[in-house]
């Protein structure tokens, strides 16, 4: 349902969407019902001519049910949501599937530097490919990422992957993703990081194996490849 509006581009995007929908359904249904009951009671027991107000002590079990039943239901549905959330948490955060490749993501005010392995598939070798504001990955491959910051807090967000992970200076934070669709999509910083926070968009380019390998081959060992200027933050009229 959510993927109708924002494509699900990673193996776990659908599970995160399902969790969001579960929370929406539970909270939405009971939230609306609570409002209906709340306003219903207000109108039903509104001040009336000749009717004296009652002081309700809340000791009568019939009256207490209005509190205790929703209370138990809240606990039951909370447990449902927690179970759903823990399952997704375990899948996304606790289980790290074997990586086909690792990419390094370095954030700074206000740009992203991505370090890709070259044809040897390993980082920290001479054929590494560094790009600014453009991450290249291959569809169907499992990637580990290593997040680092050169200065302040940032957050690595890839909406189509339903991925958002804070980047903390002084720490290397690891995670993973496996793209399942091809195309060019947004990467954004989702932690206010200074005056240029809104000016640090980047792109993720997800390609078929052949196309991605051709890109790796063409750029292997090139010190710096800057993403071309495009879109509303770029093109000079």
């Amino acid at each position, binding site marked *: 349902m959510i993927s109708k509006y924002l494509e699900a581009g990673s193996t776990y995007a659908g599970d995160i969407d399902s969790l969001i929908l579960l929370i929406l359904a539970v909270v939405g249904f009971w939230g609306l019902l609570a409002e209906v009951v709340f306003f219903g009671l207000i109108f039903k027991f509104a001040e009336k001519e000749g009717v004296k107000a009652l002081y309700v002590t809340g000791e009568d079990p019939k009256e207490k049910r209005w509190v205790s039943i929703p209370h138990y239901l809240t606990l039951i549905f909370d447990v449902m949501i927690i179970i759903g959330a823990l399952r997704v948490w375990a899948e996304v955060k606790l289980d790290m599937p074997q990586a086909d490749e690792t990419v390094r993501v370095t954030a700074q005010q206000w*740009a992203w530097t991505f370090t890709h392995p070259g044809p040897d598939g390993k980082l920290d070798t001479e054929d590494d490919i560094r790009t*600014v504001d453009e991450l290249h990955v291959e569809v169907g491959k499992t990637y580990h990422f290593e997040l680092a910051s050169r200065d302040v807090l940032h957050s690595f967000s890839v909406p189509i992957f339903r991925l958002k992970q804070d980047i903390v200076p002084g720490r290397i934070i690891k995670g993973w993703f496996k793209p399942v669709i091809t195309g060019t999509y947004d990467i954004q910083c989702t932690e206010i990081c200074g*005056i*240029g926070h809104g000016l640090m968009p980047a792109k993720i380019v997800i390609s078929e194996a052949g196309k991605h390998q051709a890109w790796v081959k063409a750029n292997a060992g090139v010190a710096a490849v800057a993403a071309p200027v495009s879109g509303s*933050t770029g093109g000079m*009229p």
Partner: protein
Amino acid sequence: MRQYLPFVLSSAVLAATGCNSIHPDGAAATLPGEELYRSCEPCHGGAGEGNPSIAAPAIAGHPAWYVEAQLVKFRSGIRGAHPDDYEGLRMRPMSRQLYTQAEIKAVAEHVSKLPVQKAAPTITGDAAAGAVSWGTCQACHGVDGKGNPAVNAPPLAGQNDWYLLTQLKKFKAGIRGTNPDDTTGGTMRPMSMTLADEQAMKNVIAHINTLSR
């Protein structure tokens, strides 16, 4: 009809606000340089005095042609797009707040009219030895370091010495001046190679510190 008045009024205000906004296509009128400069102030200061603590150089009084050229370079990724150019990578997105060539010109004009701020020396070196190395630099930057627009050489006299050292290191390391479209940077890069080491850079900067702007 009266009950719709707030809606009509608020819609009219919103429409009027929208008409005055700057469209990314540059369709609307250019804001004055002074107003555009407000985006630069947090780093370069209200008087263009710079801020060494965040590596923002003084820009007050820089010639408009140079400021314009650098803004165009930053904006198009010819400068400030190398992964090791930490300060340049900060400047590049800021330059993208200027949507049109007219806006770049306007802010460059404003910067050029700001009174030059006297930069206090922070680097010590052998100015006499630096004067010898300066012989190469002066061919473009002028004997007095006042620059030469005919060869796209900016003034160096009066510039923050820490900034000059950073840029010389960047040119020499290939962090600046290696983009194929950076013709002027490409000219400067081999010149930086003539300075053997950091001490040689500091010496020539010590000489530049003796030149008045």
